[in-house]
């Protein structure tokens, strides 16, 4: 007990790292490429021009920005902005309220569907993975569902749930759950056996091994799956909003397509990209914290 190894300690993280100067160059490159994309966009819009019916195939950037006002048409009225359908003029205030309102509605559908799908998908994945027999029994039907073209299933959900919110939630949840279920089962399958061997030779019960070895060890794989499911779930929400919904970003998109207003499609898509990007960033931050131990 006399030997201490203190003097020979190898400290890998000794130097207090000075707050690193932010490398701005990637920022500049990002800005430059964004400018390039916008420039090309505008150029394409001008070159392609309008087709015979007067529709712009590619909307110009000023058109897109101006069509922000369309959100005023999707505001149910109140807070000093009248419904445009009721004769009120479209105001910037009304458009802002309309934007917030519709983003809020779509976001709530996304959140409920996503959380429901994640809980069901990961939960059943973990339940099934507990037993090897259950895993084998369920993995074929799961792959079968995964191969099913999701958007083609939408009418079925319409038939089952009508135009109720439950239909939107369950459709989104279905999209997320199938993906995460398959990923969870595969992740549990891939946990190196040496971990459970080591834990059982330390005296851990099967339940403890599952809860404190298997589940934490698959969190990095789940993180990848959850982040993959974000754009997936957003597509499902927007698609579901097409059927029988009065509000929501998917509804606006659908109407814009109906009237071939490419500029409205573009501005709505822009909003979707920003919102989906934000949900991705927030989730990534939380998940990165949970997996901060990963090498």
């Amino acid at each position, binding site marked *: 007990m006399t030997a201490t190894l203190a003097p020979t300690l190898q400290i890998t993280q000794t130097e207090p790292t000075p707050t690193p100067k932010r490398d701005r160059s990637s920022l500049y490159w990002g800005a430059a490429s964004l400018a390039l994309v916008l420039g090309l966009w505008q150029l394409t819009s001008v070159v392609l021009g309008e087709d015979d019916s007067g529709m712009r195939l590619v909307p110009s950037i000023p058109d897109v920005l101006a069509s922000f006002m369309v959100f005023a048409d999707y505001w149910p009225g109140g807070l000093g902005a009248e419904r445009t359908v009721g004769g009120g003029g479209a105001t910037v205030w009304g458009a802002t309220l309309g934007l917030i309102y519709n983003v809020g509605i779509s976001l709530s559908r996304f959140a409920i569907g996503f959380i429901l799908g994640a809980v069901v998908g990961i939960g059943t994945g973990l339940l099934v993975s507990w037993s090897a027999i259950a895993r084998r029994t369920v993995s074929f039907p799961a792959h079968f569902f995964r191969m099913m073209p999701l958007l083609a299933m939408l009418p079925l959900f319409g038939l089952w749930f009508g135009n109720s919110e439950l239909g939107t939630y369950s459709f989104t949840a279905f999209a997320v759950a199938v993906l995460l279920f398959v990923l969870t089962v595969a992740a549990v399958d891939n946990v190196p056996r040496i971990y459970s061997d080591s834990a059982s030779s330390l*005296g851990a019960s099967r339940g403890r091994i599952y809860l404190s070895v298997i589940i934490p060890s698959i969190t990095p794989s789940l993180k990848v799956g959850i982040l993959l499911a974000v754009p997936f779930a957003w597509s499902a929400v927007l698609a579901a909003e097409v059927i029988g919904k009065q509000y929501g970003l998917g509804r606006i998109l659908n109407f814009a397509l109906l009237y071939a207003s490419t500029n409205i499609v573009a501005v709505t898509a822009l909003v979707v990209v920003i919102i989906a990007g934000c949900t991705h960033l927030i989730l990534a931050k939380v998940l990165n914290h949970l997996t901060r131990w990963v090498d």
Partner: protein
Amino acid sequence: MTVQTDARQLSGATAHHAAIELTNVCKEFRLESGEVVNSVNSVTCRIEPGEFICVIGPSGHGKSTLLNMIAGFLPPTEGTITVGGSPVTKPGPDRGVVFQRDTLFLWKTVAQNIEFGLKSRGIPKDERKAVVAEMLKIIGLEKFANAWPKQLSGGMRRRVAIAAVFANKPEVLLMDEPFVGIDYLRLAQLHEVLLDLWQEAEKRAVFMVTHDIDEALTLADRIFVIKHGTLALDMKVDLPRPRLTDDITGPEANRLRRRLLEEFSR
């Protein structure tokens, strides 16, 4: 029989059982081609409490299979294995295992890794904290109690892995080439840590697979040579402890080394 009794009295053991006892242990594997391979072939041996055994031999000749059977990860095809008198049927905390591959739980801190076995066995929190603190002191990593494994060097991780197993106070310690790839200087430190922990409990037996003859001569009371799945040589190492460089390069050590090399080349 009397000799064995004496040996047990000498080692301070009061138990009447061997630490590890193998009787005619065989292990067959069926390859994908359908061919049957005898990995371990009728091994019989008795390891007394407190003994330090090093097992050497060529790769693929059954050393690790033997260890995995004692650990309870693999059932023997034939024969019986007992640890502390009770037959081995599955892994258990009486047999601590240090693997060649890194098995630290990356999602647990150093302290939580050391605590894992104690927690699994339902040891009260106060006692757990005390054991963890003691272990951290022995391995010289007090400052790293709350570090993630990824923040440690390879040698530090090995020390934590050993401490995690020793914290559990197993009767028998099984080690499968635990120090492969560790540089020479750090190896000496790790040997010291291992011997400290081993000597802390009088009756604790160690069964360690290694490739390194010098390591075996530094650590072992007895060296087993496993060839073609059989126990080809069971050699006592009568060198004084602690073993200094002079001891493991002296004439007696060289005689033992020579015998091992002869056994290898046969």
